[in-house]
């Protein structure tokens, strides 16, 4: 594996990750208004996928894992294996806030927050939906 100086890309990572979070909030609001909107569902899926990929790349594995949970959740909805229930919206918005919190910690201290309890709770909760 080639060793790159990832620090040089940290500001671009943070900038784009925060843009994805802002777009997630906009699209989650749209989804509350129309839970069956296929374009919005795909966009939410795509944004969680992008956030996951960026965080794995930068080595922030817990933040990436949290994104992966909702990427998989919205992938299943996108593939019509599940339907979106708006009652889960507060849980998703809470996760988006946790992701933002982790980004802020990465920005200030170069460390992600420990999202392990969130990951366990979500994996247990979402598997029952």
């Amino acid at each position, binding site marked *: 594996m080639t060793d790159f100086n990832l620090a040089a890309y940290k500001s*671009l990572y943070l900038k*784009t990750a925060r843009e994805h979070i802002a777009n997630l909030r906009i699209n989650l609001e749209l989804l509350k208004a129309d839970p069956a909107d296929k374009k919005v569902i795909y*966009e939410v899926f795509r944004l969680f996928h*992008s956030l996951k*990929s960026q965080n*794995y*790349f930068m080595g922030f594995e817990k933040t990436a894992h949290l994104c992966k949970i909702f*990427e*998989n959740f919205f992938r299943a909805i996108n593939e019509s294996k599940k339907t979106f229930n708006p009652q889960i919206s507060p849980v998703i918005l809470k996760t988006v806030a946790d992701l933002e919190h982790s980004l802020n910690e990465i920005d200030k201290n170069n460390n992600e927050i420990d999202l392990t309890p969130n990951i366990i709770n979500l994996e247990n909760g979402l598997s029952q939906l």
Partner: protein
Amino acid sequence: MKLLLIEDDIFFRRFYVEKLKEKGFVVEEADDGEQGLEKLKTFKPDLAVLDIIMPKKDGFEVLRSMQQDPTLKRIPVLVFSTLGQETDVEKAKSLGASDYVNKSLFDFNQLLAKINTLTKSNPKS
């Protein structure tokens, strides 16, 4: 050698375009599948590096369109995937993609090796 990187995420696009240019490749970029198809026709790359989950047209739609065009069909495609996309990679291969790399692992030597293998084995290059 001309490469086209079709990737919606500006973070990955900027990183990989910079690194590939440093290695001497002529790199063009597209930020969604629709633009990617246009640039495949105009830029005529020796190889396309293709993301799957993108706006407007996803990577599967790009591959289907390429298969229907005798010129585009000859361009080798390296899928740009991440962890958890094993099913996507298999589907992409069934639609004509040659191989894949995990963009989140940034194993740049592996990427270069795959680019070299695919362009050498392709009669277009």
